């Protein structure tokens, strides 16, 4: 197989999905009108729908999906655990909790502050879950890592519930944001998010040989000259930045981070030089597909995209749990 075939296929799929995403919704918009709206703007109904609703949500899905896909790969590599992902590990919940605290107690609307808080929350929560799992059965044991993550997520969502009812002013807005999805999001944050995602992806590409070594085992990695703890921490920080940025744009979205790296591995390339861009692309494609499907599954209402992702993600999770390779004891 040519080296860049999977990349090409995914890019083609993404382009196709993006085009579909611009055309469909409650009303179908013909291509001529979409093109006119994109090229000339205007303020007739079709142009407004395309330019203020569909373009932003397509862009959000592209960037957030990519960020989550890559974050999932990084967490899976750092823990050598095929079930790791920002949603299940409570990293998204940490970002969400930090943002809720910031908004409720300071009332700030500054987007960069919100993004910063989300990244910090994600990082702290990630560290907490890692250390909890580590003191239980080791972070590579899927059960302990996931149970610690899921419980921390449950704890934080209760915390959010308590904080949120205390402040009715911001409640509605926050509840919408916390529902997680790509539609009607603040697309202005993308000017901040997109460069961050690109930078992190470049850093990961640069780190690829180190990540490959990390996938072996601690002793081998050390022997190959990889400072395991340092690299793990770096990778966790990178994953937290990606998760934090995507949560601050789209709210917590689960399961893309789980599915995208596994989809990328279907290409057969084991190395991170390929897996990093492929996970990014697969995440974008998944997010776009889910966002499009969400518009139709209970037409004319729109389904929350998290529901669709759970319907795809949970069977996948169950399948991964059943595989013998995970280790018989945990």
């Amino acid at each position, binding site marked *: 197989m040519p080296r860049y075939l999977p990349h090409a296929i995914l890019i083609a799929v993404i382009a196709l999905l993006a085009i579909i995403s611009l055309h469909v919704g409650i009303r179908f918009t013909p291509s001529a009108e979409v093109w006119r709206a994109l090229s000339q703007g205007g303020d007739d109904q079709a142009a407004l729908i395309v330019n203020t609703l569909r373009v932003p949500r397509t862009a959000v899905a592209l960037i957030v999906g990519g960020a989550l896909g890559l974050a999932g790969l990084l967490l899976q590599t750092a823990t050598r655990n095929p079930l790791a992902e920002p949603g299940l590990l409570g990293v998204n919940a940490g970002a969400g909790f930090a943002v809720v605290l910031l908004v409720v107690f300071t009332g700030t609307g500054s987007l960069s502050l919100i993004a910063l808080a989300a990244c910090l929350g994600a990082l702290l929560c990630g560290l907490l879950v890692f250390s*909890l799992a580590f*003191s*239980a*059965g080791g972070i590579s*044991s*899927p*059960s*302990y890592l*996931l*149970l*610690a993550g*899921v*419980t*921390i997520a*449950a*704890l934080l*969502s*209760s*915390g959010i*519930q*308590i904080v949120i*009812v*205390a402040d009715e002013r911001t409640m509605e807005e926050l509840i919408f944001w916390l529902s997680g999805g790509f539609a009607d999001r603040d697309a202005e944050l993308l000017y901040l998010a997109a460069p961050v995602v690109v930078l992190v992806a470049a850093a990961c590409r640069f780190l690829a040989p180190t990540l490959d070594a990390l996938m072996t085992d601690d002793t081998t990695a050390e022997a190959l000259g990889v400072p395991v703890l340092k690299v793990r921490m770096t990778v966790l920080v990178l994953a937290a930045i990606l998760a934090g940025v995507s949560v601050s744009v789209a709210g917590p979205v*689960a399961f893309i981070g789980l599915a995208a790296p596994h989809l990328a591995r279907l290409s057969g390339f084991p190395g991170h030089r390929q897996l990093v861009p492929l996970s990014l692309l697969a995440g974008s494609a998944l997010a776009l597909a889910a966002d499009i499907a969400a518009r139709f*599954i*209970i037409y004319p*209402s*729109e*389904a*929350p995209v*998290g*529901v669709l992702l*759970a*319907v795809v*993600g*949970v069977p996948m*999770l*169950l399948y991964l*749990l*059943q595989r013998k390779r995970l280790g*018989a*004891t*945990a």
Partner: protein
Amino acid sequence: MTAASFAQRAHPVRSRIPARVAILVACATVLCALALASVALGSSGMSLQRVLSAILGTGERSDTIIIWSLRMPRLAMAGLSGLALALAGFALQRATRNPLASPSVLGIVDGAALGVVVFLFLFSNDANALTVSIQWQPLAAVLGALGFAGLVILLAARTGAPPLRVILYGVALGALAKAGVTLFIVDGPVHRASQAAMWLAGSVYQARWADVQVLAIVLGVLVPLVFLLARRMDQLQLDELSAQATGLPVRATQLMLFALAATLTAAAVSFAGAIGFVGLVAPHAARLMLGGRAGVQALGAALIGAAIVIAADLAVRVLFAPLEVPAGAVTAVIGAPYFLFILIRAGRVHA
């Protein structure tokens, strides 16, 4: 082991029986105190004397109305749902021999919730009114809970999974049920959606006597069944072969306990919503404080479970009034750290 050491071991066990009674009485006393506090405290505080005379029917008319039609049903609902969830958790922990098992982590709570929203979705007409009696709602919750409990059992049996993996199956299926609940709420009528969100978070805010009555009748049937199975639960504590050797039909007993736990959970969830972690914490507290036979522990767990939910409901009223924070949020804040604690301990023992 010599006869002397047997005697030494036997002696403290016998002398602990009154201690157990004392602990149970203490639990019951705490429960009563919490109940009185819960009736006395609210948007308008009352002195104990006013409360007592209102309960006895000799107090002022307004006090009597506040207490009998607002606070008492809420108290009864909190107590009964806590009791049901605690017993469900107890049965699950015994059936799976897994200290981490509880109705919420095994996805049974979410299954029951899914049953309820599907019921509301299927039997609502265009005017948002139910086309069948609301009395059927608990049945829908039971079906949902049994369905998801069945799925967990199937997955666990098919793979012969180790205990922790079984919990993860529950977590995953719970996520699926939660997604289904969200979908039906979004697709449903808007005013019902906000109601459902409140209910899902686990709250006894809007309890009515009619609901309390139904729940009490259901529990009147189910709770004796738990105690009838107490002896079997003791046998089940042995390893599988020994349990079989004592003449226990292991699989059948486990299935019965699962079904009983699912039904108890559904009964609580259909009225009080998803109050999490009570089913986890209460049986542990009972085991740590009482030890001994399953029957005694079940009794203790029931008392503690009722006390936890009443205390959580009291806490949200005193701390956050006039805001209505769901009681489930408070139980999770207490219960989740405890879950992490036993998870870490289980991991250390395993290693």
